[in-house]
Structures are given as C-alpha cells and as structure tokens.
C-alpha cells in the first residue's frame, strides 16, 4: 500500500488509530502523528522507520512514567516523590526514570519495561478516540526524550484490538476511559448488601482523594485496566457516580512544573547575535560565548523562579560533566552558582592568545578554535536540554533551527589564522 498525501490527514471517524498505525508501519514512515480533539486535547506519536518511538499525551490526566512505575509495582509514591524533588532542582539534568535508576529503586531494564508500557498504554487509550482529527508530518522530528526500544506497530495494533474489545462494554460506565472522574454516592441503593472484598474496599477508600480511575490505580499500585474492571460494577450498582468533568488540555502536574514553554529562547538568541556583532577580536568573541552560557543559565534561573522553583546551583556543572566539556585542554572552567567565572576565563584566554606573539600563530589559532568548539558545544547542550522541556515537536524543531542558524554564524569565526 503506497502512502497517499491525502491519507496523511483526516478525520478519526474515517480512519481509526489502528488503521493509521498499520498504514504508517507498513510504509516504514518516519515522522510525527498528531491527534487532536475539538477541546484542544492533543496527542503526539513519534515514528521511526514505521515503529513507534515515543508518545506524548497532552492533558492534565495523562499517564506519566511515575504512574506506570507505581501501577507495575516497581516503585512507591514516596520513591517517586523523592526522585521528583531531585528532578525539580535541575530541569537540565536527568529524567525521573534515570534518577530512580541512580537511586537503585529500579534497574535500567525495569525502566525500559515501564517506558514501553507507558507508550503502549497511551496508544491503546488514544485508539478509543472516535472524534477528532489526525495529521502526519513526515520527516525527522525530535522526540522530547530518548525513549525505550521502538514499539512495533503490529504489537500496538494487537493490543489496541484487544483493549478496544474489552473496553467496549465498560465504556458505558467509564465514559472518559482511565480519566473518568468518580465520586462516592453517599445515598447508595437500599437493595445493595454493601459487603465488599478487600480489593474493592481498597479502591472505594481512595475514590474521594484520587477521583480518576488512573490516579486510583496509581495509588493502589495496580494496572489501571485491572482497576477499571473492579470499578465498573461499583458504578453500575450505583455506589460510585461519574463526574462530568472535562479533561483539561495541558500537561500532567509534574511535567507542567518542569515545563520550559515560557522560556523566551528567541529573544535570548537575538540578544546574543547583537552582542556577537560588536565583538572586535577573538578574545572578545570567546568572552562573549562564555557570557552567552551565563546569560542562558541566568534566564533559566529566572524562568524557573517564575514557575515557583529553585534551580540547583550545580546544574551547569552537572551538564558540563555529562557532556565532558568541563574545560579547554588543561584549563578547567571555574563555575559558581551556574555561572562561568568570566574574569578567570578571560585571563586564561589572554594568556593563551598571546601565544600568537611567543609560540607562533598555530598555538593561538588552535586554542581559539578549540575554545570556540567547546563553548558552542556547551551552548548547544544547554539549548537542547531546555528544548526537551517543550512539548510541541514543531516548536522544538523551530527552536533548534533558530539556534543552529546562530551557532553557525559563531562557528564561522572558528578559523582564526
């Protein structure tokens, strides 16, 4: 089946997600699939060579990796909270799952299992959408993070069929799927014996606090489909009532706090270019590049503060260690409070560039070229880390195009001789 441009967008009541997945898988497509509902609820599925590489569901009740880890009984709420608290101090640092691996709460294999499960469960839930639109944008798109092993569409399709079949009779009682919000009915039918087994009691006791099927499942550390099966009879028998709460577009709580959508990257890039144009010599250019790193970290601190969070003092240092760019040749950047010590760096540059007079042109030129490469690497890594906190792949791509245009201009100077 050859793919037709007209099949790349359309209405979900013409083609269901299972059919779209098969079409994209069969044609080994690479790109992003957008699913949109009238209430602005959007989901994004990333494809690489026809396999599902990652998936993002943009609403406040979306399935998080923390939910999956708890539902698979791989981590407790306290462990997730501890890892999240650590993550909140450094948006440029590790992901929640990676932190949990570092904390030895889970193994790397368990993290992969949880990430694959998250993708599969999101996709099977999205397949329930019968209204809305789909649009596939071919090409390389940046996934927000490195995901698990790509998920084969055949496996996803089989799971969708199984899930849809099982969900069909339950849909009447849980109309918003796993996001269905519930409350206790304090005036239950008189005919009900009101005797429950332990599992059911466990669920009932959490309804008031956690409300949605998904959050209840996370709280009791059981897979959400199992919990949904137990909840359906409670709704059917009138013990629980479905609340008519609409799902809000956006990000789930933890992701929303870490989001850097409001970081004004474009204005920062414009200001960097203007400063760069005023540089008169290689020394000023190197100092400007180091200053750009500081400026980016300063703006990040401000954006974070506006989100009510405090950036860890070691965020930049950790980034440099991870990227293996803690210095230039023998020189180590002096970093304090996420700022490179510009005075110290300037002195080092002056000494190295003055080699122009003493040790010959190549020494100074080599230093300049290497220092430029290192500083551009740091800037690029910082931008990439910020970009990974932006949910729209199109915006991420636009951001990257803008900074690459700027860095290409800086790199043009990387040929002093």
């Amino acid at each position: 089946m050859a793919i037709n441009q007209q099949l790349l967008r359309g209405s979900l009541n013409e083609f269901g997600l299972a059919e779209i997945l098969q079409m994209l898988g069969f044609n080994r497509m690479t790109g992003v699939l957008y699913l949109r509902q009238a209430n602005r609820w959007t989901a994004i599925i990333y494809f690489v060579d026809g396999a599902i590489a990652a998936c993002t569901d943009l609403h406040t009740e979306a399935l998080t990796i923390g939910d999956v880890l708890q539902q698979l009984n791989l981590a407790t709420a306290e462990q997730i909270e501890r890892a999240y608290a650590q993550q909140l101090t450094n948006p440029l640092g590790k992901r929640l799952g990676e932190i949990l691996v570092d904390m030895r709460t889970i193994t790397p294999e368990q993290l992969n299992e949880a990430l694959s499960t998250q993708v599969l469960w999101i996709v099977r839930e999205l397949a329930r959408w019968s209204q809305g639109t789909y649009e596939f944008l071919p090409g390389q798109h940046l996934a927000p993070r490195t995901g698990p092993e790509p998920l084969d569409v055949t496996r996803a399709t089989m799971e969708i069929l199984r899930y849809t079949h099982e969900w069909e009779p339950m849909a009447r009682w849980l109309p918003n799927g796993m996001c269905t919000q519930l409350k206790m009915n304090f005036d239950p039918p008189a005919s009900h014996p009101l005797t429950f087994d332990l599992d059911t009691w466990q669920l009932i006791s959490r309804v008031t606090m956690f409300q949605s099927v998904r959050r209840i499942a996370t709280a009791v550390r059981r897979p959400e489909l199992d919990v949904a099966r137990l909840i359906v009879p409670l709704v059917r028998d009138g013990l629980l009532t479905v609340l008519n709460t609409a799902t809000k577009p956006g990000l789930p709580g933890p992701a929303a706090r870490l989001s850097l959508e409001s970081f004004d990257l474009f204005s920062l890039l414009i200001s960097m270019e203007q400063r760069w144009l005023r540089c008169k010599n290689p020394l000023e250019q190197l100092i400007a590049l180091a200053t750009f790193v500081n400026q980016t970290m300063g703006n990040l601190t401000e954006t974070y503060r506006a989100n009510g969070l405090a950036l860890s003092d070691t965020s930049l240092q950790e980034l440099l260690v991870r990227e293996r760019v803690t210095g230039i040749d023998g020189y180590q950047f002096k970093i304090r409070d996420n700022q490179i010590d510009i005075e110290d760096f300037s002195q080092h540059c002056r000494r190295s560039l003055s080699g122009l007079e003493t040790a010959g042109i190549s020494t100074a030129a080599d230093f300049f070229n290497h220092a430029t490469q290192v500083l551009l690497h740091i800037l690029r890594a910082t931008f990439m880390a910020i970009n990974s906190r932006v949910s729209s792949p199109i915006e991420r791509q636009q951001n990257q195009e803008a900074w690459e245009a700027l860095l290409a201009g800086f790199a043009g100077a990387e040929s002093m001789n």
Partner: protein
Amino acid sequence: MGNLVMVIDDSLTVRKIVETSLRRNGFEAVSFPDGIEAINALMNGEVPTPDLLLLDIGLPKVDGYEIARIFKRKERFGKTIIIMLSGRDGMFDKLKGRLVGAKGYITKPFKTAEVVDAVRSFLSPTQ
C-alpha cells in the same frame, strides 16, 4: 488588509526567529536576506504584495532606507506598512526612518513579543 508580513534582514537568525514568531501568532510571513532579492521576487510575482514590511537598515547591496524609498515610490506597495529594524538606536536613524515613510522603528536586540505586538497594532492575525 491581509496579514502577510515580509521580513528583510541579512541575519538568518533574525529571519528564522521573526518568521516563526509571526507564524506562531497567526500571521503569514516571508523573508529575504536583502532588498534586491525581495524586490525581484515581488516583481516576478513569486510572492504577493506584503501588508507589512519589517526592514533591517544595515542590509548588504542596498541599505534599508533605500529599499523603503523604492517601496514608497511604487504605487503597488503604497499600502504596505514599513517598520524598520536596526541595531542603531540614534535619533538620527529613527528620523531617517520616518522620512522614508516607516511607521515604526524597533531597535535590536528586541524581544520577539515586541515585534509581534508592533505587527499586531497594524494587522489582524488569522485565528
């Protein structure tokens, strides 16, 4: 009045950023690295007449003031609103911009919101 904005700036970074910011805010945008290329594209019918022109002053080949004069001399561009972009912040530059018919003057470095607001004060975005 439509909502097509033309950006003429020799910086690829500025062009990408301004174009993207305008599109994110519901405006159409095209951009060119210099005025001659832009005018050629307009004369050859490759792009429609813009409703607003964001024009850098320090352009290669022919500077922004001269491009503005060319625009103002052609009847076809009579309704095109011109806003100058410049790294220079002197009164003299601003006055020169006025004299060639510019309705606004934005100094670099600018916040992207500043550019979008300036465009929005003349054009309406598509929803």
